[in-house]
């Protein structure tokens, strides 16, 4: 069975700093998808970035980028020039051959002014 592990329950950084959230996963599948979702205090789940496993190039969305290491089964999220609005829970999720996304437990990120 697939599993997703986020080893950092909580992180905090100063505004404008760069922060990296870690995520590791376990799977025997060769083709899959990985996602980072953000959940601000409003509770709305928002897709931040996604990565296809067969693409070697790391995905980038503005200030958000990933470091995808397929052999190591690692999928970290880097947030550059962090902003107060980035304060949220961040969830890593794995999408394989079935309809069930497997979710990590989340990392609470606090951006301090």
């Amino acid at each position, binding site marked *: 069975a697939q599993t997703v592990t986020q080893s950092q329950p909580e992180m905090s950084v100063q505004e404008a700093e760069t922060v990296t959230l870690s995520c590791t996963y376990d799977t025997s599948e060769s083709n899959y*998808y990985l996602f980072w979702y953000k959940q601000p205090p409003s509770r709305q789940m928002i897709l931040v970035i*996604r990565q296809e496993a067969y693409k070697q190039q790391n995905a980038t969305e503005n200030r958000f980028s990933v470091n995808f290491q397929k052999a190591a089964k690692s999928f970290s999220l880097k947030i550059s020039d962090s902003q107060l609005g980035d304060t949220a829970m961040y969830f890593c999720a794995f999408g394989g051959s079935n309809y*069930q996304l497997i979710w990590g437990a989340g990392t609470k990120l606090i951006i301090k002014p």
Partner: protein
Amino acid sequence: NAGVTQTPKFRILKIGQSMTLQCTQDMNHNYMYWYRQDPGMGLKLIYYSVGAGITDKGEVPNGYNVSRSTTEDFPLRLELAAPSQTSVYFCASSYGGSSYNSPLHFGNGTRLTVT
């Protein structure tokens, strides 16, 4: 753009009571999902549907039922509420299955407390 709409936002139930969490989407998505989020945990899939008239169990279906009579609506039914069902419930939809090209669109969640 309404997206995915869940009602109610909050609810307190007594043990043994029943209720239905409503979910509707206006994006003509085929796939719909119900998740629960317990404190400090990620989301767990309760039930999902790949189209009207088709539903299937997820990881934690016990104590819940669903129906999908239309593309838009996917209600979740709790028949005999138990304290273990205290959680935040999210409805989500997507055009396709859990794939790169069909990311999930979430409702704002329902916070349910069973006492």
